[in-house]
């Protein structure tokens, strides 16, 4: 079989991804923002995204997979700690978390 053309792959990927977005639009017209169904679907969305972020931290693929789990969890702990200590400062927490993982990686490499 010949390799699929790049533009064809792009169109296929777009369609496969738009499917869920478009379906969301079509169904959303029937959901009241004050009803129980809306609350349930919001819970599902939050749970799914929390699961995704937790998965990226605990079981990453790619570059992050080369770092030890304890380093990633340590970086999250530092980020969370500073975030809540300094009145939910998002910038400080994020920068501290990233700095921690980079520092730990450099220390282990040396």
């Amino acid at each position, binding site marked *: 079989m010949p390799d699929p053309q790049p533009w064809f792959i792009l169109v296929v990927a777009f369609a496969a991804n738009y499917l869920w977005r478009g379906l969301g*639009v079509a169904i959303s017209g029937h959901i009241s923002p004050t009803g129980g169904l809306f609350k349930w679907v919001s819970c599902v969305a*939050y*749970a799914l995204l929390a699961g995704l972020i*937790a998965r990226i931290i605990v079981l990453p693929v790619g570059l992050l997979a080369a770092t030890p789990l304890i380093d990633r969890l340590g970086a999250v702990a530092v*980020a969370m700690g500073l*975030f809540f200590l300094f009145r939910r400062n998002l910038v400080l927490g994020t920068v501290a978390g990233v700095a921690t993982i980079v520092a730990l990686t450099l220390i282990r490499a040396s």
Partner: protein
Amino acid sequence: MPPYADPRQAYFAGLIDAVGLPALVVLGSMIGFGSLARESGFALWLAVATTGAVWSLPGQMAMAELYSVGASAAAIAVAVSVANLRFLPMALAMLPVFRQGVRHQGWNYILVLLLSVNTWTGAMRRCPHLPHDQRAPYYLGFSTVCMGAGLVGTAAGFVLAGVLPRTVTLGLVFLNPIYFALVFADVRQRSGVLALAAGAVIGPLVHLLSPVWGLVVTGVVAGTAAYLLDEALERRRA
């Protein structure tokens, strides 16, 4: 702080709110994708177009990985589709918030093109507190900056592939989970807190059982458990 004077001001407020961490997070993630795309044999135009058209890191990663091994279009369609299933509950949780303020509902089909975890959390934080006619404009402004950063980041990652030191790339890629962990830690609504906690706990465990369907199962099981618990707490108080 919101509300703003008119929808136009809401759009610009969205732009401004996205400049900074949200844009930086997208930039970092897409720099990671740009270099992966190059290693996977993408041309620059294809890498940038993929970011614009798929607009979801997990979906784009799945596409790049399969493309590099010469997978068929059907295999890519299935993988991208499964990786992006989360957009269904995300759209369902966001669009009803906009509805009253959007005059022609057909616009929603355009608005969802810009939906990502980043733009979703940005919208969900502010929009419920805005007048109806300011919600979609705020989201649009926020999304404009994120999409711009994503396209620039993809091109930069493609060009800089192999040039950036590993630790720099590592830091850029780690921005994403750290930022969202904190954004979610900041959610105050009880049902949201319960759902996030349940999802974070069972997400990795379910992923071990089924890497393909793990996320969907996590969303439905943890989300439903959180919903029922919240309803029960509500009834007890009443």
